[in-house]
């Protein structure tokens, strides 16, 4: 096997590069026959490209990229540290690639009969490229650029059903709020730059901890402590920008609107991959650039406490709102807000003890979530494909009409609720255990109460498909190959996570440990 270190360093970005190149290939295919696109070719290329990116990522992981030498190949740093490829980056590149593949396969059927096929798949791939780059971004500039690379295609994707009012309206709302939050985020970056004089994350940390009164690069007089207010405001604004991307309180408003209006595979894509990418930025920026104690000493507040408050608020608001929805897609949108709250616990734990465990558990949860949440949205995609309707009542009795898909749905719902022996149980259990270890009793309590509440609305859907009588039709439903394949793959993975728990948890914990100690 060729060791990745023998390749040019830029090859370390392999998964992101593969995704980007595939986007260009899709462009070429599309421009060859712009008027009668070959759906199978486009979707197949997209899926193949994502799977190739996945393969490359897995290969790097096995080859030990990011694992400290001499056991592994070490962290690979590119462009003077603007991008880094470590275990955390690879972990999230994998998540992105998996979700992209599932979405591409499912879109083959869902997008049947819609215009803009070529644009659709290449935008998905470009957004995925942005997300994969987010995973590796190590400077505030690259973070922002990658974030925008992921966001701009997303806005267009939400609005891609151009003759559908809901889709266009959702796209516009998403874009406006996204632009606002991007503005806030970039303003935060400028303030942090103003206070510290640097943009690269590890240098920001150096400036904050150093207290040398000198600029870390040039050595000129530059007193960080004198700009504590500036730095503090900057950090808060960064936090707000990240809250938008992860659909956390108080910037979660857009999520239900955008997910509801967007094509269901895109909702799956945004709520799984895009959210995960937001988290990788949150983890990278806050754990690398702002060491908890030094930052707290300087600006007067402990950002991990802020994350704890956000975590509890996000999970509570998300779950409470989900409980009263009648529209299934909206329920899933709010539930995805709730899950962002669970994942935020990982960052809340960084200030307390046992932080690798909590952060690792959060990574683990995002991994499992990528499958179960994508799967759940893909079921909605399937329901929209069938045209059965959007509310809980419309789903009544689907169990008899499409049993296989409904078994998959049941797996997703129970896994999202955190019922053993499904994947969602283990990651939630680890989060619970980790937050107890870290002494965050309140957060742990909120996690349990919210999980219990979530069981109510998840099982409501399960009850609807299996136990309620269908309103009108009793016939069996079509079984589109792509959607079914994606759905079943996601369901199988949600279950298989249990026996494969060891390696996945290990790599999540390793990634968490590495990012915390670097």
């Amino acid at each position, binding site marked *: 096997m060729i060791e990745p270190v023998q390749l040019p360093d830029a090859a370390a970005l392999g998964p992101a590069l593969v995704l980007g190149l595939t986007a260009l290939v899709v462009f070429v295919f599309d421009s060859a026959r712009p008027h009668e696109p070959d759906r199978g070719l486009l979707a197949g290329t997209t899926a193949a490209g994502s799977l190739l990116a996945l393969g490359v990522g897995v290969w790097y992981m096995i080859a030990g990229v990011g694992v400290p030498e001499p056991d592994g190949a070490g962290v690979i740093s590119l462009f003077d540290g603007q991008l880094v490829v470590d275990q955390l980056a690879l972990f999230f590149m994998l998540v992105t690639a998996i979700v992209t593949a599932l979405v591409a396969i499912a879109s083959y059927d869902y997008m049947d009969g819609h215009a803009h096929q070529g644009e659709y798949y290449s935008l998905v791939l470009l957004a995925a490229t942005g997300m994969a780059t987010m995973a590796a971004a190590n400077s505030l500039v690259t973070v922002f650029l990658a974030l925008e690379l992921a966001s701009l295609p997303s806005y267009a994707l939400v609005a891609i059903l151009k003759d559908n009012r809901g889709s266009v309206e959702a796209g*516009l*709302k998403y874009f*406006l*709020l996204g632009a*606002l*939050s991007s503005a*806030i985020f970039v303003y935060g970056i400028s303030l942090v730059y103003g206070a510290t004089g640097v943009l690269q994350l590890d240098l920001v940390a150096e400036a904050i901890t150093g207290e040398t009164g000198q600029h870390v690069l040039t050595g000129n007089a530059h007193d960080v402590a004198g700009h*504590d*207010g500036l730095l*503090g*405001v900057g950090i*808060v*604004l960064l*936090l*707000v920008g990240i809250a938008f991307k992860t659909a956390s309180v*108080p*910037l979660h*408003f*857009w999520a*239900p*609107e955008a997910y509801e209006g967007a094509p269901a595979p895109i909702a799956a894509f945004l709520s799984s991959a895009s959210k995960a990418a937001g988290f990788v930025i949150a983890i990278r920026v806050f754990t690398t650039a702002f060491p908890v104690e030094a930052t707290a000493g300087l*600006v*007067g*507040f402990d950002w991990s406490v*802020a994350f704890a408050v956000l975590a509890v608020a996000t999970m509570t*608001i998300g*779950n*409470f*709102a*989900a*409980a*009263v929805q009648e529209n299934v897609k909206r329920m899933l949108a709010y539930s995805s807000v709730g899950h962002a709250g669970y994942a935020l616990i990982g960052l809340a734990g960084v200030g307390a003890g046992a932080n690798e465990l909590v952060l690792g558990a959060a990574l683990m949860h995002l991994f499992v979530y990528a499958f179960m949440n994508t799967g759940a949205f893909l079921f909605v995609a399937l329901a929209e494909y069938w045209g059965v309707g959007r509310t809980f009542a419309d789903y009544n009795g689907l169990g008899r009409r499409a049993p296989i898909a409904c078994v998959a749905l049941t797996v997703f719902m129970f896994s999202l609720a955190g019922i053993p022996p499904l994947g969602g149980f283990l990651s939630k259990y680890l989060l619970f255990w980790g937050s107890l270890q870290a002494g965050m009793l309140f957060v742990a309590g909120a996690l349990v*109460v919210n999980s*219990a*509440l979530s069981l*109510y609305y998840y099982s409501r859907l399960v009850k609807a498909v299996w136990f309620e009588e269908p309103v009108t039709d009793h016939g069996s439903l079509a079984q589109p190959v792509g959607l079914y394949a994606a759905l079943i793959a996601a369901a199988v993975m949600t279950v298989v996570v249990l*026996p494969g*728990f*060891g390696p996945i*948890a290990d790599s999540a914990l390793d990634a968490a440990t590495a990012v915390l100690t670097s």
Partner: protein
Amino acid sequence: MEGLFTFAPAIVLFPLVAFAITLLVGRYLPLGGAIPGIVATGGSLALSLVMAAAVAGGETTNELVYTWFETPEITFHFGLLIDPLSAAMLVVVSLIAFLVHVFSLSYMNAEGETGLPRYYAGLGLFTFSMLAFVVADNLLMSFVFFELVGLCSFLLIGFWYRTKSAPSAAKKAFLVTRFGDFFFLIGVVAIAASYGTLSFAGDASFVTAAESAIDSETFFGFDADTWVTITGLLVLGGVIGKSAQFPLHTWLPDAMEGPTPVSALIHAATMVAAGVYLVARMFGYYALSPTALAVIAFVGGFTALFAATMGCVKDDVKQVLAYSTISQYGYMMLAMGVGGYVAGVFHLLNHAVFKALLFLGAGAVIIAMHHEQDMWKMGGLKEQMPVTYYSFLAGSLALAGIIPFSGFWSKDEVLYDALIVGLSEPLILAAYAMALLAVFFTGFYTIRMVRLTFHGEPRSEAAESPHAIGLPAKIPLAVLGVLALVGGAMNLKPLEELAGLEVAFLERWLDGQGVGSVDGLTYHAYSETVHYGHEYIGGPEGTVILSAALSLGLALAGAGLAWTLYSGPEPTRHTERLGSLRDLAVANYYQDEYQVWLARGLTLPLARASDRFDQTAIDGVVDGVGSVSRFGGERLRRLQTGQVTDYAALVILGVLALLVVLGINGGWFL
């Protein structure tokens, strides 16, 4: 894993593959899907013999196969432990599983049963679970497969699920053994929590950990030796349930509702043996606790007698065998409890062979009798079914403990071991006395069964013109019949003691002398740990002769009594002369009644009370939370206006609020 042991997992996996095949495509296969099972168990048998040969060649293995998951404190894993004990057990289990599969061709296929793929799939799953249980290298794995064999037992007892009695018997077997397993599970958790390991062997075993903890550590406020006793007894709960020891023996007679080959395989030779095997597997642990050993010995001795008395009055041939099974497992428990590890295992192996033989023989009789099981309706089958008769007779004489059949040698060794310990321990002496008395009853009910079934005049039409049985039934009977005759040669301990010949092969095998062994899992290692002293009457030789004479004499007396009482063409029902004593034994000492009373009178009201608590208190709180959250959710919904300008305003307000709060806290504005 090295050398031949590379193939060891295949022993376990063959039947699993057969299970999968039979389950998925069984209905398209010839013979109702019997062939995959026969091939798989045949393969397992061949490989088991290879493993035994490897062990005989001085090798053993104790290897990790799959790590389930690990934490800093403990690792849960699946592994293989193949030492003399498990190798011997592997051979016996796969042999009997193979023969039972073959026999089923006669018992099930030839009788035109439906649902055969389900039957063979069940047998395959059972064989897989049982073999995996045998090779388990840790207590958790044991527990997992202990439960799986229980599940298979449930499925197979209830094979004829359309009848009324079979599902009910299946449920009973499942629930009663589950009651014991509940304690077992607590024991597993307790052992894992206190020693941080569940392995049976090696330096990191819980036995080693317990040994070093004794006299120095305390667990949960108990001295280490008390704690060993507590955890040992908890695990023993599972053993008592599975090996049908008093008071959890009630399920086994009902389990006879299942097809007879199933009774032979599961409810006589193997699954019921799992309990005793578990005690043998972790004998090093029990050896640390004299109290636990005494409990095991006493329960065993009592069960041996108690079940034997019930066996004397049953009229159904399978019922007699069921009670004799309970009784014989009592002997094994007694042997374990007095430190007679070799004797216990010896009897376990012998019993597996001759009891499987008896059940298969009974199965052959049942086929011949058109599914009539009442012995009073049989008679005179001797001339018409010679193969069945002579093999059944060999099994019976082994069961009764008549020299030179296998049962004599092992039962004698059990009683001898109990006697030499009992001479200084009154409690053990009592257990010994009960077991000794049971020998008489054993001889009695065994010969009564043979007499009523095969001798005299036919007492029904079916007995006059029995159905012919096929070759697949005769071959297993013949094989097992020979083994029942010569099995005792495994361990001719009395000859070694008296004549100085080196013929105690099994003892040397289990002690790892000249064969492979795992440190700490040998007979002399156990003997060093067990605290019992030995006393003799007239020296060791005198005691051997005395013990053998006593047990053989009592067995012959019981057998002779039955032989004369039930002689002649039309035997009379002599047990009726016992009057109310017989009624008591026929009613199984009202064991079922009091257990049903416990369930109805105690458990049910308790369950009702907790249900009421759950309905009112817990559900009340939950409903309250639900109402609050619905209300809160409605409020939140109103915030979501759909107006993008509102959202933008909320975002800005939120940011400003955060800045003000944090800014005042951090003193930025000063």
